[in-house]
């Protein structure tokens, strides 16, 4: 499944300072659908190069990270259980506090 993953608010530092990643993610053998929980673990093992604890805590993203699926808060789409579709754009953004 072709997806675009974007990292912002400093999270890009965890994946070689690259903000946009065009990726091809295979769903688990025997499963037809790809859910957000699968994408998170795929991302952690394939894109995150350092300090994985700055990306995930337990089985979800760490506090202070917003997840957006096609410009919509994942809490409005089903969170970890959201089923992804071809060409979806998933954004991981760390909240900023500076000023």
């Amino acid at each position, binding site marked *: 499944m072709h997806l675009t993953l974007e990292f*912002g*608010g*400093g999270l890009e530092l965890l994946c070689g300072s690259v*903000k946009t990643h065009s990726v091809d993610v295979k769903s688990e053998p025997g499963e037809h659908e790809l859910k957000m929980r699968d994408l998170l673990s795929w991302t952690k093992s394939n894109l995150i190069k*350092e*300090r994985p*604890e*700055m990306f995930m805590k337990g089985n979800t993203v*760490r*506090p*202070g*990270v*917003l997840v*957006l699926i096609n*410009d*919509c*808060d994942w*809490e*409005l789409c089903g969170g970890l259980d959201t089923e992804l579709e071809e060409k979806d754009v998933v*954004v991981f*953004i*760390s*909240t*900023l*506090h*500076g*000023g």
Partner: protein
Amino acid sequence: MRGLRSPPTLVFRFQTPVSTTVARTTSNYLGETEMGSKGVWSGSSDAHLLGEIERLKLEKEELESRIRLLQAQLKPQGAAGEEQSASCSLSPLSCPPINGTALTGLSLEMIHRYGRHLLLPDFGVEAQLKLSRSSILVVGAGGLGSPVAMYLAACGVGCLGIVDSDIVELNNLHRQIIHTEAYIGQSKVKSAASTCHAINSSIKLVEHREALQVVNALDIVSKYDIVVDATDNLPSRYMISDCCVLLNKPLVSGAALGLEGQLTVYHHNGGPCYRCLFPNPPPAAACQRCSDSGVLGVVPGVIGCLQALEAIKVASDVGEPLSGRMLLFDALSSRIRTVKIRGRSPLCPICGENATFTREVFQSFDYENFTQSPMSDKSSNSLDLLPESSRISSKEYNKIVNNGEPHILVDVRPAHHFKIAAMPNSINIPLSILETNLSTIDSALKQADQDSGRCADLYVVCRRGNDSQRAVDFLSKNGFPMAKDIVGGLQSWARDVDHSFPTY
């Protein structure tokens, strides 16, 4: 935060142009008198001075009687003689109905000043009137707060409050455009109010020269209709949001760091509060600060301008405020994306249906402990990782250099920091790649051993003395037990040894 011990609230007084002129005249006058006292003091100049004093006294009396006359004319409308107080309650003062303009409720001067607003079909007289009757509190007079306060003053909000305890520093000026060099060392709030007054002397300005904290937040925020969060740290953001929920005030929240910015309006039109979105604070290590990570000056400027816009929309009830949505700004790619965010959470501990968060709880809540980060951009928790024997002061290191004792100095700052300034003969191996570059240290040490015929020592330095401890901790466990860190890093070197060493 640096606290300025000054009265908690000060109503801004007319300052700059008038007082400067007066001061100059006075000093000229004193100068003349001084010259006179040096010997040219004669009966005739005495008489001349007395005559001049009499003439000015008469002029003063005439001016005073004219002022009384004008005040009497104003009194029936309840406008004059009223003392400005720290509260932001707005009397009809802000929009006195004067001859022929009672129809709109805007004064002649207001129609002239805000004419371009009034020409907008989507804004017009009604929105301008609402704006002129609104009161807005800007928390933070920094990079975000600068354009916010300047635009809110310029556009004619009835009352503008600014709260901050910081003082203006040279390294603020690249982004905090409300301040000028002349105000370095002075209160940011005083400086900001002076600029706002210079832009628009017809609005009410309230100076709060103190940090917003749980002990004063309810009192200060309650005096305003709308709050703008222009702060630079995480605990303040939670505190301001909680306070706004308790007092039912809309909160225009902006943030900027590096080359990115974020903006949304909390607790407005059924939208979420900060805690609905971020019920748990991020780990302290994820909280980057402008003073550590840097920020391009114009980035908070862009977000601050947008905050001013959202505050104006909320105050004047025009358009669709950014509630339930968040604007994300990426300066490098020139992209602005607006995303839909969750609504108010029924389970939110602050604004949810069964929330038990009260003013009493708020006033005793420890936000710094909750977020594990300080209520300031500046103070960073200094690490204490190493035993005394693995540490050395910058002064002691200076002796080692002067005595020519064989050693190598490893600077573990990121490469772009090293380019700003570095100690002579230091080797740059950033902490992030230290693990894979131990061989570099090893061969440098061997070379130093060879050159001196003695056993060379290993010292590690960074900007403030935290990363150098982490590096020494790692090195001592990986084959370099003699490694020592320089306490306080380059900051301490510049402060205690070499005053000409650049600090940033």
